[in-house]
């Protein structure tokens, strides 16, 4: 039995399943919390499952919620791999959405097949600018990117509030006394195709394709290699001839760009307009933050981020149903999200310990058979 557990593929499988176990453990803790609220946890979780995957419609809703999460997560994969912490997903989404909406409202006489790609591109660019500024400040002025991205979030929110109350306000609302801060609706031709009768839109497909592209970028191109090299060891990367500063800017820029695209798709696929309640989460639904969580859950791997964001999308959508059926606040589910991540992050330590044990076992064998080659085995273990 011990031998089986130590064999290569079994331990690999166990490592792969760790996030699943961690999720189950988090759900167990959530069940205890539910019991404290005097709610039957089984009933609650069944309603959560039903709300997230129960029908074609709820499945579609889950995927719609997962799309911005995945797009933000892709950007996070790039920046965290480059050892740059991007917490500005919210602001980048907002700026991307503002620019994309502006394109859609300005050029109403152009056909949809021109405007939609153009709007996606401007969204991408808007996010890139908003991410690139902290990147530039980090690379050339060593300004901590965690702080500057957080500040850029606050600036983006006020920018949105200003634009939606002033220059970009819906002309119909401008005449009314209520003056709801929102833009006009996009015309029919500019909306992303939907899989009727659900709200599932083309953006889901775009996100999945981009996930594959990001995987290729990170592991099959020179740019991706350099981003990862800078993330691993900037000094080594510098002596290998990589322009470290440029790649720091690039990883934050790309990271922001994906968040910007998420904002653009949110407008063109779901809302068809921008509306603000004064806070960032009013527009983004906290996708800019939850995307980070999804990326961490997906072990910063673009392909693994797909199931991770679907899981968090499901938790968010299912929460509404659970709230209605068993009368618990949906904030509990948001707390559950955090629990899942805490458990996954701590399961990582277990994985690393097992890895060390395996290496130690290999080293022991090497030492026993070929005493002269200990140094080599040691080097392998370190590498």
């Amino acid at each position, binding site marked *: 039995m011990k031998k089986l557990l130590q064999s290569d593929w079994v331990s690999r499988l166990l490592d792969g399943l760790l996030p699943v176990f961690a999720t189950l453990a988090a759900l167990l803790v959530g069940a205890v919390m539910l019991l404290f609220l005097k709610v039957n946890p089984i009933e609650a979780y069944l309603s959560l499952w039903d709300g997230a995957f129960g029908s074609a419609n709820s499945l579609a809703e889950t995927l719609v919620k997962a799309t911005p999460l995945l797009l933000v997560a892709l950007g996070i994969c790039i920046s965290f791999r480059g050892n740059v*912490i991007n*917490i500005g997903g919210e602001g980048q989404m907002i700026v991307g959405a503002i620019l994309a909406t502006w394109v859609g409202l300005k050029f109403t006489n152009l056909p949809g097949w021109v405007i939609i790609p153009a709007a996606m591109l401007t969204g991408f660019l808007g996010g890139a600018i908003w991410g690139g500024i902290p990147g530039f*400040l980090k690379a*050339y*002025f*060593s*300004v*901590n990117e*965690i*702080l*500057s991205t*957080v*500040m*850029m979030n*606050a*600036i983006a929110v*006020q*920018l949105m*509030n*200003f634009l939606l109350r*002033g220059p970009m306000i819906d002309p119909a609302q401008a005449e009314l006394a209520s003056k709801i801060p929102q833009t006009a609706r996009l015309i029919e031709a500019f909306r992303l195709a939907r899989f009727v009768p659900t709200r599932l839109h083309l953006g889901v497909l775009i996100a999945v394709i981009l996930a594959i592209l990001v995987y290729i970028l990170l592991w099959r191109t020179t740019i991706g290699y350099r981003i990862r090299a800078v993330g691993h060891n900037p000094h080594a990367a510098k002596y290998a001839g990589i322009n470290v500063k440029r790649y720091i800017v690039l990883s934050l820029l790309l990271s922001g760009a994906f968040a910007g695209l998420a904002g653009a798709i949110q407008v063109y696929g779901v809302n068809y307009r921008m509306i603000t309640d004064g*806070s960032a989460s009013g527009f983004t639904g906290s996708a800019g*933050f939850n995307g*980070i*969580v999804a990326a*961490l859950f997906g072990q910063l791997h673009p392909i693994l981020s797909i199931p991770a964001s679907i899981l968090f999308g499901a938790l968010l959508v299912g929460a509404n149903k659970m709230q209605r059926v068993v009368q618990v*606040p949906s*904030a*509990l589910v*948001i*707390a559950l*999200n*955090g*629990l899942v*991540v*805490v458990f996954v*992050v*701590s399961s*990582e*330590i277990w994985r690393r310990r097992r890895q060390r044990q395996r290496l130690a076992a290999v080293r022991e064998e090497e*030492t026993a058979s070929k*005493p*002269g080659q*200990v*140094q080599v085995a*040691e080097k392998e273990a370190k590498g």
Partner: protein
Amino acid sequence: MTQETLLIGLAGVLASAAPVVFAVIGETLSERAGVLNLSMNGTILLAAMGGFAVAYTTDNILLGFLAGMLIGALVALVVAFASITLKQSQVAVGFVLALTCRDLSYFLGSPYMGVPGPRLQVVPIPLLSDIPVLGTLFFRQDFITYLSFLFIFLAWAWIFRTRSGLMLQGIGEKPAAAYIRGANVTLMRYVYTVIGGALIGLTGPAYSLAIRAGWMGTISGLDGIGWIALAITIFGGWNPLRGAFGAYLFAFLQWLGLVLQPVLTQVPSQVLQVAPFPLMILTLLLVNIGNAEWVERTLAAMPESTRKFFAKLLRAMRASPPAALGVPFISRSRKRVLGGLYRRICARGRKLRAVFVKY
């Protein structure tokens, strides 16, 4: 504006900066020990909610403040456990906690939304409060503001003027060296992170029981304070005096925004609301500019007199973080040395190994 209203406004600035001062000092202590407590934004909200809830149910303000400190200490304990014992990424753990605590406070605080609760009263200090200008500024505040004045100097003296403070700097700068000098790095890091967390926790009730009394859920306007406090900690160069200056500067800019709003009517209100943030980025830039390579190169090319002036200016503004900030310390150096020895002996031959194991 008369002189009296101006003075009262400035006294208000000192009071409204008090919570941020606590957060900055707490974070400074924690980061000086080498632990980045990124959960601050959530902790403050949770402590504000918890402190208010306790003070409301027990009708005892002191218990409310203690509850806030306890919450902050507990969250910091989680951060410490994850980053010191489990050696996890402090950024990941802290960030997740920041979100979780925020959501938890909205979730648990819903019964206390908008209920009128107890509030800390202003206690003018006799005699001192009658001094013409200084009296209004410094001595007609509430208890928590006095405490913030006191803590600034206490923290500064502790870090820079005591032996334990020197050790604190050591475990943040070079834990291995501090370890050799006999410091229990792991324990010290735990202690300072938890104390720092308690101070951060004090920020919450300082809002919900004094400055912005009551708990208003998502519209409390407290979300984001933690991030600003984090920026001010860096601006302060991990020095409580400079950090406190940053907090007062920030509060002053916010107050200025409010005062100027009726004067500058053609400027959109959002501009004044948002102004502290670009200013904060700018100050971070100024603090860090001395560390940039190209700046040094540009300086070297300048004529002697200007170069000296700018170099002095940059040195005054410059601040670098504790060298071991966010780096887990593996206190097994002795074991490792022995292990290396052991392995080297192994390589010489099986016979020697048997001898080594025997003895």
